[in-house]
């Protein structure tokens, strides 16, 4: 009944200039649809089901009760599906509760000669290995993120192309969100190390310990290294859709963000927040209106001159460099860099991201961000003016694209909504400068735009 209307409310929100159909993930879908998928037998035809038909309200018929039972049973079956690892492509990860550490075969025997003799890999790096025990807390394994807590001794498969960092023993270290995501999708088998269990630890490294459950993985990884469940929901949600995500510098509270457009800081100009001050100044110093007409006395020969004179209200120019680099504060801070599936991504040298995402918890942050918060957040992102032939031509595309943009992921108890905030420059689009369309040829010129804002 309400189907069409629910679909209709999503239509006006055409994000990113692309047309988005009804988002099936908006509401709970009937799990019976899932059983139509023959994903277990044939992965090639795993297309998503159509939106299920729902009833308006419960009635005491047996028919309805039966359908509901079937739906619930389907849901139960789908959720009860075990995470299995075929021995052929099983990837085993080992939980390292104390963070990255060199393998035990290297770390425990402190004598240098044994290392050089036994471990051919570390021979060239003997000098490094000597140093590692002294700085175990800061970063014992070079090239690996200090928040990593799971290592994969035998990395294979496609997942490590854009996840994890390898150390020099060829083990790939995973960040908590990466490990949890892989475990959750049934692609990684994480083991408890023996040192965490009550069993005696006799130092044999070939015993990989006992498998970690999903429950234990949530308990171990959520809350580790700044990973909140909200951030994880955003991470896994976008990963499931095929995006690549990495932590942005703003992940850590208090860490200075590198502002990427420093080279533009040559001339001082007011930022978004500075506009208010300029407006006040203008209010006080607006003598022109008191003396006479705003457009000035005399003979006017061109409309454009008049319009130019009439534009007395100052506007924010996004091209102007930010006045002072103010520090963004959580939650209005970029915590993820997001890459489209089509963007070529190398994990050792990540390219500039396609999207910057800030994660906001709707329960703790109940108000819309202030202009100052939004301003600093936008100023922390690099200038990205609309470019290209299409943007030149289409005014509204240009306005929507803006000069800086950031995506806010609002999380309400596991339900994520994404909003794109862009710094649009209405003041820069002088409508009076545009050439009026000649004749009826609509193809040659863009449509005439209404003058009002």
């Amino acid at each position, binding site marked *: 009944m309400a189907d069409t209307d629910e679909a209709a409310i999503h239509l006006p929100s055409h994000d990113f200039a692309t047309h988005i159909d009804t988002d099936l993930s908006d509401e709970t879908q009937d799990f019976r649809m899932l059983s139509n998928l023959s994903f277990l037998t044939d992965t090639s035809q795993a297309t998503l089901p159509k939106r299920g038909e729902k009833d308006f*309200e419960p009635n005491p018929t047996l028919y309805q009760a039966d359908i509901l039972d079937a739906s619930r049973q389907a849901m139960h079956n789908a959720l009860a599906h075990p995470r299995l690892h075929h021995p052929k492509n099983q990837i085993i990860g080992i939980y390292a509760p104390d963070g990255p550490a060199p393998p035990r075969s290297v770390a425990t025997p402190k004598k240098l000669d044994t290392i050089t003799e036994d471990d051919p890999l570390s021979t060239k790096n003997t000098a490094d290995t000597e140093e590692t025990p002294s700085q175990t807390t800061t970063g014992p394994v070079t090239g690996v993120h200090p928040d990593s807590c799971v290592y994969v001794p035998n990395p294979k498969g496609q997942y490590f192309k854009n996840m994890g960092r390898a150390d020099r023993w060829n083990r790939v270290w995973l960040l908590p969100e990466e490990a949890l995501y892989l*475990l959750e999708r049934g692609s990684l088998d994480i083991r408890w190390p023996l040192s965490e269990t009550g069993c005696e630890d006799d130092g044999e490294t070939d015993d990989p310990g006992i498998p970690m459950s999903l429950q234990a993985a949530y308990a171990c990884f959520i809350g580790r290294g700044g990973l909140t469940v909200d951030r994880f929901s955003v991470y896994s949600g976008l990963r499931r859709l095929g995006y690549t995500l990495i932590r942005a510098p703003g992940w850590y509270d208090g860490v200075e963000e590198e502002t990427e457009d420093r080279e533009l800081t040559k001339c001082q100009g007011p930022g978004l927040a500075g506009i208010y001050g300029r407006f006040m100044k203008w209010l006080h110093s607006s003598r022109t209106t008191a003396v006479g007409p705003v457009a000035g006395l005399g003979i006017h020969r061109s409309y454009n001159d008049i319009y130019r004179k009439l534009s007395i209200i100052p506007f924010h120019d996004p091209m102007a460099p930010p006045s002072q680099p103010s520090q963004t504060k959580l939650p209005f801070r970029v915590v993820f860099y997001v890459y489209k599936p089509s963007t070529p991504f190398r994990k050792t040298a990540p390219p500039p991201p396609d999207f910057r995402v800030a994660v906001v918890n709707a329960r703790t942050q109940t108000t819309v961000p202030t202009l100052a918060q939004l301003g600093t957040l936008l100023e922390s992102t690099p200038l990205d003016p609309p470019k290209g032939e299409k943007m030149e031509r289409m005014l509204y595309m240009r306005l929507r694209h803006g000069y800086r943009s950031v995506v806010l992921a609002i999380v309400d108890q596991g339900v994520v909504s994404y909003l794109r905030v862009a710094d649009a420059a209405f003041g820069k689009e002088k409508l009076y400068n545009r050439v009026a369309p000649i004749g009826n040829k609509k193809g040659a010129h863009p449509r005439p735009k209404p003058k009002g804002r």
Partner: protein
Amino acid sequence: MTIEPTLPIPISYIEGNYYVFSIDAVTYLRREYHICGVLIGTLPQIPQQNVFLGLPLELMPEEARLLVEKGVACIVDEVKVQKQGMKALMEEDRKKYLRELESQGLQAMRLQTSRKEQQREKTLKKLEEKKVKAAKSKKLPEDPEPEPEPAAADGPKDDPSLELFADHQLSSNSQTTSRRTSTTINPENAMGITPATAHPPLPAEPAAEQLLPTPQVPSSYPLFAHLHAEGYFLSPGLRFGCQYLAYPGDPLRFHSHFLVVSAEWDEELDLMEIIAGGRLGTGVKKGFLIGGAEKKEGSADKENVRTFSIEWAGM
């Protein structure tokens, strides 16, 4: 469908949020207590989509509180449980658990191989039928189109795989049976399993010091509890611009009827909020429901929740 988990159900508290990991508990709470929560995990069968999600189930603090107040559940400090539980795990338990997992893995492997076998047989049968039919149609020249119903439907798509199977069948028919028996015996070939819950190795009952007090809830809790008591299923409503979505029945089968926003009894409301809410609700054929607990002088603790539904009159 009538699995009864042992009560109280432990709700895991991890870093400020509440989760349920046991599938039996999830279905039980949904069926008996109308608590749906939000599934936030990836479904391992089809991991690259966001329409159907899997365990764990995240509960709103309101839902957790309601269950605790009803005596159905208890809040457990999961981080503590895991740490202490693993520390207490002895060599014996570990070996036993590993053996259990291995036998489950073997079982899974056996099931999968037998399923594959069945599928193979099915396709072979289909192939044979097709051959027979093809032979028949050759005999009948007035019927140039191949056979109509079942084989034609998935004919072109399945063809290469069929031929592949046909080749195999000739050469390795005798081998497969022997290979199958070998897989069932060899423990090397057991499927690895990542269990959803931690409780086979760890005790099912949490220790007393691992229990936590009842969850802190927002001021909208009285309204939440009231609507829940009236039989509504409630879920977080940010997607629709409200606090809760109220469903008349299980959200699996019904669309929601109300966008719920809670207010304090003497709170001054902006008229714009009511208009915006009413507009928003009417746009999706839902009512905008506003409500709160009425504070009465005489009965201080007995809260009386009142609700109002706002609709566009369309005069």
